[in-house]
């Protein structure tokens, strides 16, 4: 019988159990067990499952931004070869589902909220037939007579205070700015971003009687089941999702997207499996975007650079009635001092695809701007940018007064600076020229809030002494398979090849899902809890205290007692389900992962092209569960930082609201040639308040401020102080010195 052993995390677990176990697999840079499948093309992704008689669906997207669909000219399309159905069911989704919603998003595809919103699904025998028919479908629209704005900064845009973000106010910022020895008051802009995950959103839906089975590409299955069930008005118990491999998500697959619901409806009507795969363009046009932002940062400091005031106000956007507003000031609340403060987010209601979580919502764009503004203050005060950060680390969170659980920012700044060679930086711009290139260095702090969320996992210690870990936790390329196996192996004293991890199936206990950097620590804590229960049973069998139990390489030892696990188990399995619930530690402590970025860039003296030459990142995020997958997360985040600094921008045509650069040819993510040697330093840290593992989230930390370091390096290289991301060459050129002038 399986028991569920629940821990509500009300007080820090300071036993640091994983420092006393002896298997020695936790933290090791082990390969991902599923890696060979992925690189050999034999991991089955959502659209690749083979089912007999599977029909193919292609979404039809609106060619207006706002209005209603008056008529779909279905008959001509139904007469086309192979076409089975044209669906415009009111249960189909109009918007993307926000992460952890657990309920349907806005449904009903007769109304059009934004350009390229899905309005119908065409299903045919083959994909080519369906696509041809989808393009052929004629649609009559009635355009809205009172359209809302297409641009958040348009005077017509309605601006509201969002539901998900509270204004932080303390002291008198205006007065602090007035009294300050140095005052910086600057406005930055960041554009919208796409997740641009490698695997497009895809679902194969099939019904077994009244039970729905989905093979799909989603990040948070326990929520996704509820979302799809709510859309279809069925019992969540009747929905099963299978998603063992997910080809990246970055937030865009947190909630269910349009293809899943459309496939389920089509499969129900046609009584056969239906596959719907979004095209790359459709992914760009219809799934979650990161909001563009306009950010005003005010920094008031005394003569030494110590902050006495801090303002961070942002304008973001979303569709009307969406609760989500990019939480731009999330890290600003706790990162630096300055008791006189105003942190505020406003949301403009506009017609663009749903805005939601894209990797590190809030900090990704908030930190890059705050850290660019801090560079401006460092210049004004004339002190080293690293020193400026160190002078402004408060003892407690300003205004709130909360204590920090653990904060390795100083260590990250120092070790990062040392490894990078920050002391070689020349403080004034335009001091270093190599051939046609200006060379510069910049730095930024990293910070990202830590979240522990509810999660369950089942661990079976089998009679033969091997372990099985089961949860619906997804692995979106991040390393869930590896680290959950390492936690179980460490806790149960098993070599890693004796632990099998099964993920991504909602018939298993509900993990945290992959999002908010919380998957590893939350689901990992559940695995740990289940293993603790197994350890208790084993210690009873061996006849010792649980604390005195020593497990290694399949043998249980305590003092003179020693027995192999298979002997100890006596032919029986032990099955335990562990569950973690967030508790008081979430309120009692300010929990965040920290780090520091250092970047060296080259800016072409003639053309203004910026190339990042090298980067160093030092990060403290509690216990490292797997040094290889953690490093990869940091690397990936920093690559996103390069994109955010230099190339990535959703470009909308403000006449009709359509997205112009809706593919990977024109939405420029960094390619290999843009990514230089990146050094990642993982700091030793234990944060008992964050999770029983003493680990914090790392999945998003690497992006949170990275673009700021690059921006600051551009200024140091060539004197171009740019406040409008991305820093494309057209923005750099007007600030460049005469390329033929001698270097000062």
């Amino acid at each position, binding site marked *: 019988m399986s028991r569920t052993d629940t821990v509500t995390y009300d007080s820090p677990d300071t036993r640091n159990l994983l420092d006393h176990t002896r298997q020695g697999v936790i933290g090791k840079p082990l390969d991902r067990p599923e890696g060979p499948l992925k690189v050999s093309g034999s991991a089955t992704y959502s659209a690749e499952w083979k089912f007999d008689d599977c029909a193919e669906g292609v979404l039809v997207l609106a*060619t207006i931004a706002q209005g209603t669909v008056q008529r779909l000219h279905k008959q001509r399309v139904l007469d086309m*070869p192979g076409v089975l159905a044209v669906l415009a069911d009111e249960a189909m989704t109009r918007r993307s589902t926000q992460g952890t919603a657990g309920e349907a998003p806005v449904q009903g595809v007769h109304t059009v909220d934004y350009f390229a919103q899905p309005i119908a699904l065409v299903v045919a025998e083959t994909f*080519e037939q369906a*696509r*041809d028919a989808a*393009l052929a479908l004629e649609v009559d629209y009635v355009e809205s007579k009172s359209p809302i704005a297409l641009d958040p900064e348009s005077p017509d845009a309605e601006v509201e205070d969002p539901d998900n973000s509270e204004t932080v106010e303390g002291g008198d910022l205006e007065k602090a700015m007035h009294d300050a020895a140095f005052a910086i008051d600057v406005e930055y802009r960041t554009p919208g971003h796409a997740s641009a995950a490698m695997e497009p959103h895809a679902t194969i839906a099939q019904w077994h009687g009244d039970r729905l089975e989905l093979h799909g590409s989603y990040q948070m299955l326990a929520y996704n089941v509820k979302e799809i069930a709510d859309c279809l008005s069925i019992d969540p118990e009747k929905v099963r999702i299978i998603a063992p491999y997910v080809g990246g998500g970055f937030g865009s697959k947190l909630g269910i997207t349009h293809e899943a619901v459309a496939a389920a409806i089509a499969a129900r009507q046609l009584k056969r499996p239906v596959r719907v795969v979004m095209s790359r363009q459709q992914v760009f046009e219809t799934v979650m975007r990161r909001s563009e932002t306009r950010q005003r940062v005010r920094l008031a400091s005394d003569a030494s650079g110590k902050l006495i005031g801090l303002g961070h106000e942002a304008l973001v956007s979303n569709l009307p009635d969406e609760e989500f507003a990019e939480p731009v000031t999330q890290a600003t609340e706790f990162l630096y001092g300055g008791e006189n403060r105003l942190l505020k987010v406003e949301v403009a209601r506009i017609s663009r695809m749903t805005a939601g979580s894209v990797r590190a919502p809030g900090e990704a764009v908030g930190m890059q701007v705050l850290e660019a503004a801090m560079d401006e203050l460092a210049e004004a005060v004339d002190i080293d940018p690293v020193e400026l950060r160190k002078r402004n680390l408060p003892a407690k969170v300003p205004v709130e007064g909360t204590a920090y659980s653990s904060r390795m920012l100083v260590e990250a700044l120092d070790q990062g600076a040392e490894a990078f060679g920050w002391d070689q930086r020349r403080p004034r711009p335009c001091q270093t020229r190599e051939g*046609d290139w200006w060379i510069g260095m910049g730095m930024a702090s990293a910070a990202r809030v830590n979240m522990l969320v509810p999660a369950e996992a089942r661990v079976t210690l089998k009679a033969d002494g091997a372990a099985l870990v089961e949860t619906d936790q997804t692995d979106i390329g991040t390393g869930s398979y590896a680290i959950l196996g390492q936690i179980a192996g460490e806790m149960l004293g098993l070599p890693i090849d004796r632990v099998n991890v099964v993920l991504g199936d909602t018939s298993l206990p509900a993990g945290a899902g992959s999002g908010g950097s919380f998957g590893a620590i939350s689901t990992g804590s559940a695995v740990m809890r289940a293993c603790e229960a197994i350890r208790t049973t084993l210690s009873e069998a061996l006849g010792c205290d649980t604390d005195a139990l020593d497990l290694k390489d399949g043998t249980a030892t305590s003092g003179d007692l020693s027995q192999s696990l298979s002997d100890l188990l006596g032919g029986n399995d032990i099955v335990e389900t562990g569950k973690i619930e967030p508790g008081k530690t979430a309120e009692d402590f300010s929990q965040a992962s920290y780090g520091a970025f250092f970047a060296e860039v080259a800016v*072409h003296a*003639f*053309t*203004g*092209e910026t*190339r990042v030459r090298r980067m160093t990142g030092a990060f403290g995020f509690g216990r490292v569960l797997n040094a290889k997958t953690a490093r990869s997360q940091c690397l990936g985040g920093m690559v996103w930082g390069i994109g955010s600094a*230099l*190339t990535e921008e959703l*470009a*909308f*045509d403000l*006449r009709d609201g*359509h997205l*112009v*650069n*809706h593919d990977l*040819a*024109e939405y*420029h993510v*960094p*390619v*290999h*040639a*843009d990514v230089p040697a990146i050094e990642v330093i993982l700091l030793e840290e234990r944060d008992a308040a964050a999770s029983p593992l003493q680990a914090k989230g790392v999945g998003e930390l690497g992006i949170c401020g990275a673009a700021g370091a690059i921006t600051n390096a551009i200024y140091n290289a060539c004197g171009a102080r740019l406040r409008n991301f991305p820093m*494309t*060459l*057209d923005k750099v*050129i007007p600030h460049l010195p005469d*390329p*033929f002038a001698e270097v000062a």
Partner: protein
Amino acid sequence: MKSFTLDHATDTDSALSALRGGATTIAGGTNLVDLMKLQVETPDRLVSIRRTGLDTIVEDQDGLRVGALVTNADCAADQRVRTSWPLLAKAILAGASPQLRNRATTGGNLCQRTRCGYFYDTSQACNKREPGSGCAARDGFNRIHAVLGTSEACIATYPGDMAVAMLALDAVVLTQGPNGAREIPIAEFHRMPGEDPSRDNTLKPGELITAVRLPAPTGGVQIYRKVRDRASYAFALVSVAADVSMEGGRIARCSLAFGSLGTVPWRDRAVEELLVGETPSPALYTKAADLLLKDARGFGHNDFKIPLAARALAATLHEATQG
């Protein structure tokens, strides 16, 4: 994708026969297939010329003859090209990705269509895709568009790199058609949009590119400078192909071609005449750029291409003449 038939020509004659019957030529398909998926192009009948044997590179006393089916990868890797016409190899390698260059061909690349987002998006007006429907790019998001050679009807660029190098090298496009063989100087191959942007080039109906001929090498310094938003796998914002010879500290000979600046690969002989005989200097580069760009006109987002082209030209001339 609309249904279509696909025939394989086994020689030039069978290809021409299929073209007479209304077929559209397909070679590597790296551009055409994308356009067919989006139904920007909807041919009923395709003739593949991949089995016609037009895939050899031959050198003689007049220069080099590159078969229409020579892949971009093979052309750029050819030792004769690398040694004597390095500009061509450099331009090809600045474009696309290894996978695409393995598939894309010399003739096909010349016929590559624009990357204008409005051309690719069938929900938008585009005179190139649908004559008479208008040009949504003019007042739209036109960051990648042309500042030279534009018309009321179209401001789209020819996006490629290879043809820009060929233009600087005075290449000749060799064709076969219903009326026999033709030699088209590459400067006359791409068509300015004028009132009819739907035709990108001066190929006649039923005409097939068989090869490109490069004249004997000049021995000049050859540079391809491609300015773009990221380090690889991006179309040029502006590119400069230069072939420059110096004598006694003066520019003795130069040819310059520009990519992604005009609606076609752009060459301005007056600029070259201005430079020849002169001693290189920043002031000279500025004069050359002023002449090159005297009729340039931006449409908002692409205004920056005008100063960028001047800067790219200066950098290229500086590099070509200071060695």
